[in-house]
C-alpha cells in the first residue's frame, strides 16, 4: 500500500484534472442553511474538505431515493408495447471525495444485500462498480460518533479506495486499491510520501480513536437467542416517544429497504423504486390487510433488531450499524441507538 504526499495547495488543481475523467461527488453546503448533503460537483467546482458531517448519508449516490428501473410503452401500435425494459443509465466513472470511512464501510454492508450469489441488483451493482471512494479520515470525531464500538472507526479502510489523512498543510493519501491508484493518476498525484508518513498516519489515527468517548457494548448480541430479545419487555418503553417518521432510516447509511411503484402518464409507463422505511405503517403490509408489524412498538423493534441482531446472525459481518451517529442527531424525539444497543446487550431475561 503506497503512501502519497499531497500539498493542499495542489489539491484543487488535482481535483480539476480528475474531473476530466470522473464525475465528482462531495459534501455540498446548502445555500440557505447550515447543512451539508452529498451532491455532484459541476465542472470547476472543488470538493468541500471542511470535514462537515452530512445530514443524510452518501448512500443516495449509489442508491437514489427514487430510482427508475424499467419502462414500457402502452401504445399498442408499437411492436414492443407493454414490454418492460431497463431504463438506460450512464454509469461513467465517478468518485466520492471526502466521504467518511465508516460510510464507505456501510456501503460494503449494503453490498451484501444487493450483490449476492443468488441475485445481483443491476442498478446497485453498476453504480457501485463505477464508483471510487476517496475517504477522508476523521481527525476530530463528533460526540455522537461511536464508530469504534461498531466494528468500524474514523480511519476504517473497509471498501475504501484511497484514504486521505489530513496532516496540517498536506494530505497523506494511502492508496488501497487499483481503483484508487487509477484515480490518483488521473488527479496527477504521485509524489511519494517520506518514510515518516506511515508513523504520522498511525499517530493521527490513534489520536482520533482516543477522542471517541461514546462506548457501546455489542459483545453479547451474537450469542443471544433471537426470541429472548424479541420478547424482551423493554420495547414498549423505547418506542413510546417514537412518532414513526422515516428520519432514522432515511439518514442511515445502511438502511436498504425499498418499495416498488408503477406510474403511467399518457402512453408511457415507468417502474421505479423509492426508499421505504420500517417505521411506516405501509411497510410489510400484506395484500390481505394483515401487517405483521402493525403496531408502533413492533416497527421500532424491527429496526433495532435488524440492525443489531438479524443482520449479525445472517451475515456474520458484525452489526448493520457503523456508528455514524446520524440517527442520534436527527431523531426528533431523541431515540438514541447507543442507548438501545446497550439495553439489548446488557439485558438479563427474567426466568
Amino acid at each position, binding site marked *: 500500500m503506497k503512501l502519497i504526499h499531497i500539498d493542499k495547495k495542489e489539491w484543487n488543481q488535482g481535483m480539476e484534472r480528475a474531473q476530466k475523467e470522473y464525475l465528482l461527488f462531495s459534501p455540498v453546503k446548502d445555500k440557505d442553511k447550515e447543512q451539508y448533503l452529498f451532491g455532484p460537483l459541476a465542472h470547476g467546482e472543488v470538493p468541500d474538505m471542511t470535514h462537515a458531517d452530512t445530514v443524510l448519508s452518501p448512500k443516495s449516490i449509489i442508491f437514489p431515493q*427514487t430510482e427508475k428501473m424499467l419502462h414500457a410503452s402502452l401504445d399498442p401500435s408499437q411492436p414492443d408495447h407493454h414490454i418492460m425494459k431497463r431504463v438506460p443509465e450512464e454509469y461513467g466513472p465517478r468518485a466520492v471525495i471526502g466521504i467518511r470511512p465508516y460510510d464507505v464501510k456501510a456501503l460494503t454492508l449494503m453490498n451484501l444485500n444487493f450483490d449476492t450469489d443468488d441475485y445481483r441488483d443491476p442498478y446497485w451493482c453498476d453504480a457501485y462498480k463505477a464508483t471510487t471512494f476517496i475517504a477522508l479520515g476523521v481527525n476530530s470525531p463528533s460526540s455522537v460518533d461511536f464508530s469504534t464500538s461498531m466494528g468500524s472507526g474514523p480511519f476504517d479502510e473497509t471498501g475504501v479506495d484511497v484514504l486521505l489523512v489530513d496532516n496540517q498543510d498536506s494530505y497523506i493519501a494511502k492508496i488501497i486499491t487499483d481503483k484508487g491508484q487509477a484515480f490518483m493518476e488521473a488527479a496527477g498525484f504521485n509524489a511519494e510520501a517520506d518514510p515518516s508518513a506511515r508513523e504520522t498516519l498511525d499517530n493521527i489515527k490513534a489520536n482520533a480513536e482516543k477522542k471517541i468517548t461514546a462506548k457501546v457494548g455489542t459483545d453479547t448480541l451474537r450469542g443471544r437467542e433471537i426470541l429472548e430479545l424479541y420478547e424482551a419487555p423493554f420495547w414498549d418503553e423505547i418506542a413510546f*416517544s417514537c412518532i414513526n417518521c422515516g428520519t432514522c432510516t432515511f439518514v442511515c447509511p445502511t438502511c436498504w429497504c425499498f*418499495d416498488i411503484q408503477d406510474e403511467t402518464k399518457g402512453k408511457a409507463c415507468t417502474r*421505479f423504486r423509492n426508499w421505504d422505511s420500517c417505521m411506516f405503517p405501509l411497510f410489510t403490509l400484506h395484500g390481505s390487510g394483515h401487517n405483521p408489524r402493525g403496531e408502533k412498538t413492533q416497527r421500532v423493534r424491527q429496526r433495532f433488531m435488524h440492525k443489531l441482531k438479524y443482520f449479525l446472525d445472517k451475515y456474520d459481518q458484525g452489526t448493520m450499524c457503523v456508528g455514524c451517529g446520524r440517527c442520534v442527531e436527527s431523531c426528533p*424525539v431523541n431515540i438514541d441507538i447507543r442507548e438501545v444497543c446497550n439495553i439489548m446487550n446488557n439485558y438479563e431475561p427474567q426466568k
Partner: protein
Amino acid sequence: MDQLTEKIRELASTLLKDGKVDMVIGFADGTLPMTSRPFLATESDKAAQLVWNSFCSLNLTNYITGRKEKIALFAKGCDSRNVVNHIVENKISRDQLHIIGVPCQGMVDKKAILKAVGGEITGLCEEGDKLTVSSSHGDVELNKNDYLRDNCATCTHRNPVIYDELAAPLVEEQTVEEPFADVAAIEKMEPVDKARYFDNLIKDCIRCYACRNACPLCYCPTCFVDESGPQWVGKGQNPTDIQTFHFLRAFHCAGRCTDCGACEAACPMDIHVRAFTRKLNKDALELFGWEAGLDTEKRPPLDTFNPDDPDEFIR
C-alpha cells in the same frame, strides 16, 4: 435542578401515588444537549426523570390521541390548544385528562443556536433567560429571547387555555404588532416568485413525514399519501408530488393549526414547513375571526356553515 422541573416531578409523583391518573406524559432529558424526549411515567418513581426546559418543543397532545387511560399531561399554551382541538374532534374526552398547565416563555430554536455558535455543541446550561452554551470553540453566553423559535416569538397564547392545575404562575402574554408579516411578504410576490419560493422551500424534503407525524392534528388512520386505491399522490421524489403532500397536509390543518411548530421542530432537513400552514392561519383569522383551540364549545370554521361566511369567491 430548576424550580419548575422540581415542581413538575412533585406534581407527577403525587398524582401517580394517589392513583388519580394511570399515567403522566411529559418530557425527559435527551442524550444530547438541546434535546428532550417525550416521556411516559406510569409509576411514581419514574416521575423523577421528568424535566422542563426551553427545548421541550414538541407537542405532547400528539401522544394522547385515542388513548383510553386516565392521563395527566403537561401542557404549554400551544399543547393546551391542541388538547381543546382533540376534545372538539372527539379524540379524547375531557374527563380522561388531568391537564397540568405550564405557562411558557417560549422555546429555543436549536438550529439558530447551532448557527450562532458554530462548531459542535457539547453542553448547554439554562438559568432564567441566560443560556450558557459550551462548544468546541469554548463557552458563550446567549440571551434566550434572541433565539426563540419563530412561532414562539409571535405567540400570543403562552398561557394554557385549559388546565386543572398550574405548574407555575401565569405569564404575561405578548402583544405582537404584525403577527403575519412573514405571510404578507409572500402575498406581495408575483405568482412566479411565489411558486419559486415554495419550490425552493421543499427542495430538500425527503418525505420522511416527520412533520406529519409530529403534528397532533395528523391522526388519520391512513394518511392520503399512504392510500393506494385510489392513489392520490405519487410516492417518489417528484417535486410536484412532494408539493402536493405539503399543500394537502396543510389544507387538512386549515382552521385547526395552533402554530405549535412541532412540524418544524421535527424536520430533519430544516425546512420551514409552517410557511404552508401560516397562510391558512392568517386566512382563518381574517375571514372567520378564528384562532384554533381556544374553546371546547366551538367548532372550527371549515366544519360549520354560517350564512355570514365569506363567499365572494363564488360567482
